[in-house]
């Protein structure tokens, strides 16, 4: 059977193929929506076991997640702290006097040949 010039087998491959791609990725979505929940749950459980007094029972999920913005702010602060550390300084600003010092490298004396003229 043909539909719009193309035979039914081609239509089958088209529809089924796209459906399978969708299915595969939807399946992955399902798994990756579940994985963080499982990890969070196991993390909470192990923390509760370790330190029962410090962890409140009614803490919501939000308490365990740190947003990207918070992380970025912490990272920036650490970066600034480590990169802008200075040694102990006197905080006295002085201007050094510029003096022309004698330097023999350009001394005129050395630019002449010590050759006597014939007398």
């Amino acid at each position, binding site marked *: 059977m043909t539909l*719009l*010039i*193309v*035979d039914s*087998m*081609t*239509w089958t*491959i*088209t*529809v*089924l*193929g*796209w459906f*399978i*791609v*969708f*299915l*595969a*990725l*939807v*399946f*992955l*979505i399902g*798994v*990756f*929506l579940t*994985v*963080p929940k499982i*990890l969070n749950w196991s993390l909470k459980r192990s923390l509760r076991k370790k330190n029962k007094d410090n962890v409140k029972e009614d803490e919501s999920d939000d308490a365990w*997640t*740190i*947003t*990207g*913005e918070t*992380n970025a702010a912490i990272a920036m602060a650490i970066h600034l702290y480590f990169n802008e550390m200075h040694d102990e300084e006197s905080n006295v600003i002085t201007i050094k006097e510029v003096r022309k010092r004698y330097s023999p490298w350009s001394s005129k004396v050395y630019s002449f040949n010590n050759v006597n003229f014939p007398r």
Partner: protein
Amino acid sequence: MKRLITLFGVLSILFSLQFVGGGFEAMAAGTEAGDTFMDHASKGLEMFWNFTGFANAHYTNLIMIAIGLFFIYLAIKYDYEPLLLIPIGTGVILGNIPFLAGYKIGLYEEGSVLNYLYFGVQQGVYPPLIFLGIGAMTDFSSLISNPKLMILGAAAQVGIFATFLGASALGFTPQEAGAIGIIGGADGPTAIFLSSKLAPTLMGAIAIAAYSYMALVPVIQPPIMRLIIPKHERTIKMKPPRAVSKTEKIMFPIIGLLLTTFISPSSLPLLGMLFFGNLLKESGVTERLADTARNSMINIVTILLGITVGASTQADYFLTTDSLKIFGLGAVSFMVATAGGLIFARLMNLFLKGDNKINPLIGAAGVSAVPDSARVVQHEGLKSDPNNHLLMHAMAPNVSGVIGSAVAAGILLSFLM
């Protein structure tokens, strides 16, 4: 030195004078009379002439060489995928230098050096190695933090299947149509992998079309984005992705590998290598291997792949009406894929509420073309709102597009092989 050049010049003028006015015929007649030094020399020159590219040139070769030069121009002048277009452009020139057949020179001549290098393309060796490198350099965190964006990668694969239909309607065999359809995946290595299996004769045209359109993503996508997404939707700000733990990052390639290859085992070489590369990166204990995969190895394979794919476009194989059809279908498939991703993103927004809404522009990144299409999304987003940075969000559908197109390739392979 000057004297030597003058002497050589005079000698060569004297020598060439004898050919004026039916030189070669006279030379042939002279051979019968008796062999002289001049006869031997002219015979040698004639042989040499027959070996040169000038004697064997055909106008189609010149057209292809011009195309190769155009690719190089595009890469240098406009910075369109230079890492791909320069090797491919040079390859196109290399493959179209005219030569006398039978001396193990050309890419299609058994035993030639280029033929040995081409083995990696023919047997689909290079694409999985490229995928290994891509896996080792890709950060899947944006995808893991917001997995629902993965669906956009699936939506954009509509380009593959629409092109498959279009190619079938234009009279290509189902295998050829499948190989042409994968251009819509906007993924060079996948296109080469699938076409080497399904339609080796069309591989040159398919690969060139796929890489050309990938390079032209910044030109093709923006008008479609502006056409489909209204201005107020382009300014939607998405909430920042959550931080992803190391355990999740390590689990992603393992789970992804198991699930996708169980669903579509034919895509094992591509997805296996992609997730393996990512595991090397995320495991944190194989930094040396990950470093090699994402730098030296992928660079070497890109050079070999580019030059051989370029050289496979010998004029007599490439300049056909089929190639023109493939280029036409490729352009349409890119547009359909982009539109598919964008429309699906708008559809998704109907079901999402509050700050969970997504900026529909990121749907365009569902065509793989990593990371160019994500960059285009960022660029378009900034045009609508200079404070709206969509790059990280767009990377999620972008990398899921890579997975989606590899799965689609596996499905087409299992249906059509």
